[in-house]
């Protein structure tokens, strides 16, 4: 068995891993390695061929492959070591990473710090338990995206999409452009799970109906999907049988949620948050296990890669500090609390000595769509900071920049609560 030592091991070569590794390097820790199971870097971005990436980070609109290539170039320019076709099998709490590939066999890497950047995967048909048969033609939107954009097979001609997450919306347009008849996008909730711009430019542009409060209640077909039964649901999400109708379709795409891929994290005894599906972290993105950091979709599912990049740079910066012995805790721990209408706030705690910290963004989501909101932060019940947004939707993560000076006088504070409430009169 090949045994090596590395200052920082980054698990995953998608947008999170690429940005984290470059940031580690730029903070003076050059002995950093990326382990990637695919044959190339980029994670999911190479199959996200649509535009809309990079508006925040680069202030220009790029496609997924273009966004990815900029960070791949960063890694290449720094001569950061990358192992492709390499599967990580285990991570221990004392930061030993076990991996294997065809050329070197089994590897043990002793890491000064580990950055978990494994991303997420899609919720599949099995998790939904839709009644009916189990024919071919029922697949996740991301799988269809890979077939269509990377491998060159369009997976069907008559398509129904269940779930209005961004990948579902993007694939509705993509399948339509490739000549398929996209009959409907069904969303069980009364609002879409994706970005509004994707509803406009993917559905409205092509007259694809978005059926809110609708779900698929039956899958019909033997070898291949022949039709689906769709049914309207009531306010308790119970199907109303009298509204059922059959739609002929050979393909059902599922865009019903993403799950952070934390099998390795669990092996390292990293504790996960039930709400996000990812680890509990402090503002440096360190998990409960010392020296193990997490960033990107393995931590919480983002809707924009720009914030994945930003978050991964935060993780990379602190992981480098950890390795250099410049990582200090303040000794007090402020807990972030998701208050009214807030489903979660990242980070979970603030506990690091941030003398050179400039701005620390808080990432959060609302639990329900709201118009004209005030985002209010309270330190142990006392108002700390407030700002407004024209609207807030569960599908769109909110980034709250927090200035250093806001955090300076919080030594004795135990808890910061975030409430997001509609302004009066709404």
């Amino acid at each position: 068995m090949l045994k090596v030592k590395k200052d920082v091991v980054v698990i995953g070569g998608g947008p999170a891993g690429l940005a984290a590794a470059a940031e580690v390097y730029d903070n003076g820790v050059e002995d950093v390695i990326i382990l990637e199971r695919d044959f190339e870097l980029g994670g999911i971005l190479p199959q996200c061929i649509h535009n809309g990436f990079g508006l925040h980070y680069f202030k220009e609109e790029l496609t997924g492959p273009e966004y990815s290539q900029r960070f791949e170039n960063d890694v290449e320019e720094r001569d950061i070591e990358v192992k492709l076709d390499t599967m990580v099998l285990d991570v221990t709490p004392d930061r030993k990473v076990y991996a294997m590939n065809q050329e070197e066999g089994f590897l043990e890497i002793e890491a000064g710090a580990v950055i978990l950047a494994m991303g997420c995967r899609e919720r599949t048909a099995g998790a939904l338990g839709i009644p009916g048969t189990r024919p071919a033609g029922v697949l996740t939107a991301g799988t269809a995206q890979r077939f269509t954009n990377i491998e060159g097979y369009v997976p069907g001609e008559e398509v129904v999409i269940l779930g209005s997450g961004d990948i579902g919306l993007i694939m509705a347009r993509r399948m339509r452009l490739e000549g398929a008849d996209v009959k409907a996008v069904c969303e069980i909730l009364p609002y879409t799970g994706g970005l509004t711009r994707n509803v406009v430019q993917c559905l409205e542009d092509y007259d694809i109906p978005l059926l809110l409060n609708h779900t698929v209640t039956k899958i019909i077909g033997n070898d291949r999907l022949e039709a689906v039964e769709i049914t309207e649901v009531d306010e308790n999400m119970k199907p109303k049988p009298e509204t059922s109708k059959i739609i002929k379709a050979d393909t059902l795409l599922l865009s019903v949620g993403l799950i952070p891929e934390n099998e390795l994290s669990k092996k390292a005894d990293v504790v996960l948050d039930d709400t996000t599906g990812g680890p509990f972290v402090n503002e440096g993105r360190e998990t409960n296990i010392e020296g193990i950091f997490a960033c990107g979709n393995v931590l919480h599912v983002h809707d924009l890669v720009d914030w994945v990049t930003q978050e991964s740079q935060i993780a990379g910066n602190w992981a480098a500090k950890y390795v250099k012995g410049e990582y200090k805790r303040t000794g007090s721990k402020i807990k972030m609390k998701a208050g009214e209408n807030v489903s979660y706030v990242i980070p979970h705690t603030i506990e690091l000595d941030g003398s050179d910290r400039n701005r620390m963004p808080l990432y959060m989501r609302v639990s329900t769509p709201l118009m004209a909101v005030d985002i209010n932060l309270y330190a142990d019940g006392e108002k700390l900071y407030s700002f407004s947004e024209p609207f807030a939707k569960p599908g769109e993560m909110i980034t709250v920049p927090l200035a250093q000076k806001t955090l300076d006088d919080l030594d004795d504070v135990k808890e910061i609560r975030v409430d997001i409430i509609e302004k009066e009169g709404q």
Partner: protein
Amino acid sequence: MKETKTLTCVACPKGCEVTVEFEGNEILNIDGHACPQGQTYAEEEIVAPTRILPTTVRVKGGALPLCPVKTSKQIPLEIIHDAMEIIGQKEVEAPIEIGQVIVENILDTGADVVATRDLPRKIEV
């Protein structure tokens, strides 16, 4: 006849709700946008909507059978299907470099179709 339409701006992920008052092709008032892009978007959306077209082109001898491409600038929404037809007939020899022009001045729009990644040749083993 004076009409009012509320649009969701797609210029960026912020998704401003922009209200446009117009009569035929004449814009009377635009409200609700947070930046100048919103103004341009709303004007174009009423007169002639345009979009970037991202798709793929077939590749010969590449590490992958397809290369992602996009139009270098927005093209009219109404000719997107015609553009797909033209790009669908193309096959490009690998290696391909990011930014490489795949179709020049597609449908006289002034937009080129360009590759959005590097794609090396397939390595024979």
